[in-house]
């Protein structure tokens, strides 16, 4: 009898301990959560959505209203949670690994996407909802989020790389950015800028590979070969690094606090007018309007310089694939809404209006009333219209492949190699050989 009581007590004690910790861990995913009803009625299905960019939530809010108005019998309430970049991807990865706690819909950034395609992806195949729009959107942006012909992510933008010139600094130095065509021109202009103003023409990035991607794409090369294996110590890569190193040695470009233009520290440096140029994907526009308000009216957009005239002048950079997880409550509803919210023509127009991205439906690029709307905040901010440049380079936008090796390659280049070359002056060939060896070791 005594034993029975003892066992009961034991169970009780265990339950208390477990209950206590269960209460803590079952709290929400962290970050800021807000419920968007978008005019939904009581019978609306509630879907959850994770993102690392607050603005993406605003885009979904607009599209949600349209969806609920158009499909009154399939209304949705969207539970948006915004988390910091690393946190969101780490939590999503654990949730998918364990099969518990994942949202219905989530953003995954391109740099992290291959990790979610490892093994058997815990994401839903989206081919059937993408099909109706397939002809209208840039195919290569879908391929980025695909594995074995199955599309797992819906793209947000093209991310065409362009040059952002601070015309105030250039005018002071007597440089006309429109005459810059090759890297040689850029170097001459940069030397002039440094001599006249003491300011740097551009940045030597140590924590991002935007510039390298641009230089590789111009040479028709990539970080990986056709089988997805890393190719870091190639002549093309050496050439790209040499061009940048030469610019750095001539005080044309210099390392920047934060390591690349898309960081908090760098926004401050740019806003203070210490650097004249950023070579970034088009979405850098929203960073200008949000964080560099002092530069309003001074920034002009232009094609990136090339090694030799005639080489392609742009490459798609970055990207966010939105996915539906296998554990979603109503998979079909989530899929249909996702396609509606990101692939329809309306959605593509909103992506430009709200987010300032170059939409994947390139027909939108030619809609004068949308792209040249004088009320648009991006049109107002920049010295010239971004779409004039985009339409000019439209057929030259190359692609850097995303493979399962990409996250590792990116990690090694951005933490070790670029720092060694631009901060410590290590020999380029040696640094690239070391990087190749380290990447191969990690991928084993």
């Amino acid at each position, binding site marked *: 009898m005594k034993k029975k009581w003892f066992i009961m007590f*034991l169970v009780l004690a265990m339950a208390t301990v477990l209950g206590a910790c269960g209460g803590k861990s079952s709290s929400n995913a962290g970050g800021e959560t807000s419920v968007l009803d978008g005019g939904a009625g009581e019978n609306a299905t509630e879907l959850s959505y994770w993102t690392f960019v607050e603005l993406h939530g605003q885009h979904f809010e607009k599209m949600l209203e349209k969806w609920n108005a158009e499909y009154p019998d399939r209304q949705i309430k969207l539970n948006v949670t915004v988390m910091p970049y690393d946190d969101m991807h780490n939590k999503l990865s654990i949730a998918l690994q364990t099969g518990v706690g994942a949202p219905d819909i989530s953003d995954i950034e391109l740099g992290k996407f291959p*990790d979610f395609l490892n093994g058997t992806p815990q994401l839903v195949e989206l081919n059937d909802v993408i099909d109706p729009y397939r002809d209208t959107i840039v195919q290569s942006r879908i391929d980025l989020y695909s594995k074995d012909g199955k599309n797992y992510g819906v793209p947000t933008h093209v991310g065409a790389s362009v040059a952002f010139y601070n015309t105030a600094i250039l005018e002071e130095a007597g440089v006309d950015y429109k005459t810059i065509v090759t890297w040689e021109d850029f170097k001459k202009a940069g030397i002039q800028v440094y001599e006249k103003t003491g300011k740097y023409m551009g940045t030597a990035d140590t924590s991002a590979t935007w510039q390298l991607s641009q230089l590789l794409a111009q040479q028709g090369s990539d970080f990986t070969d056709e089988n997805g294996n890393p190719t870091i110590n190639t002549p093309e890569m050496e050439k790209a690094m040499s061009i940048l190193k030469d610019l750095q040695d001539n005080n044309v470009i210099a390392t920047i606090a934060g390591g690349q233009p898309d960081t908090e520290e760098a926004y401050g440096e740019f806003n203070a007018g210490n650097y004249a140029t950023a070579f970034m994907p088009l979405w850098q526009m929203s960073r200008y309007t949000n964080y560099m308000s002092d530069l309003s009216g001074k920034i002009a957009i232009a094609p990136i310089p090339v090694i030799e005239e005639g080489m392609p002048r742009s490459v798609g950079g970055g990207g966010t694939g939105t996915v539906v997880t296998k554990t979603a409550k109503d998979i079909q509803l989530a899929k249909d809404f996702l396609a509606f919210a990101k692939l329809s023509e309306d959605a593509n127009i909103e992506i430009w209006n709200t987010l300032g991205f170059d939409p994947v439906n390139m027909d939108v690029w030619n809609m004068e009333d949308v792209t040249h709307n004088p009320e648009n905040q991006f049109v107002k901010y920049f010295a010239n219209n971004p779409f004039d440049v985009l339409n000019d380079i439209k057929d030259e936008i190359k692609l850097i492949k995303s493979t399962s090796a990409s996250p590792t390659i990116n990690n090694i280049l951005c933490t070790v190699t670029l720092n060694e070359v631009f901060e410590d002056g290590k020999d380029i060939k040696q640094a690239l050989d070391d990087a190749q060896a380290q990447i191969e070791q990690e991928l084993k």
Partner: protein
Amino acid sequence: MIKRFLYSQKVAPYVFVLPFVAVFLIFWVYPLASSFSMSFQKVTLGQEAQWVGFDNYAKLMTDGVFFKAVTNSVIYMILTLVILIPFPMLFAVLINSKFMWGREFFKSSFFFPALTSVVVAGTIFRLMFGEMDTSLMNSVLGFFGLDPVKFLKGQATGYIALLVLATWRWTGVNMLYFLSGLKNIPEDYYEAASIDGASKFQQFTKITMPLLKPTTVYVLTISIYAGLAMFIESMMLWNGNNSPKNIGLTIVGYLYRQGIEKNNLGYAAAVGIVLLAVTMIINLSQLAFSGLFKKEDN
């Protein structure tokens, strides 16, 4: 029946230790055992884990970044010991001395940093050690006519930033341990010693230091562990787990990178087991050396 149970002297002790044992089993033994078994597996998304024998450990032995992480952690641990044991002890003795004024003020101001969150402190230190000319540390250097330094991009300067943060945060805590140790040393010893003509310095080395030994051993043990397991400080200082040339990468940081960021849980488990082994070896030998396992002879 209930009464017999409640008043049973045999059962009571078990009931009292039960919560601890349960917590220990669920949150310590079980995770440890499953990490141990996981370290022999390859865990892939959406698939059954595969047994791969010693593959993870073999890979670890040839992994340069892992050794970089171990070196970083060990150097950081040693440097924190060098700073965070003698100085707090000295401060504790000073504050404890009879001639000290404003004792409570110093105690609380030394302890205050420990109350702030590492996340907040780390972020502020990151800004203080920023590479711009206008960051606090570079302004100070500029005041003395020195050139600005990219603190968080160099190995030595990176350690300086980490150690300043650690010193600022933990001096007060260690000082409190030593203060409580000092309170246990009877005043009579010092009186007797001064009557015999011992100087203050002799009193410190012959009375204070030996009698503080249990406290010192305790502080040493937790400091070794804290030094080797350091992670958040580095993560906040470099605004993420990826520092330039891995100068701020620690063992736990590497575990986090492999397990959480790269979703390679099997390999990360192997890293964790090695960390456990290293910590246990260092701490057990340290404890054996300081005589903890010797039988007390009365």
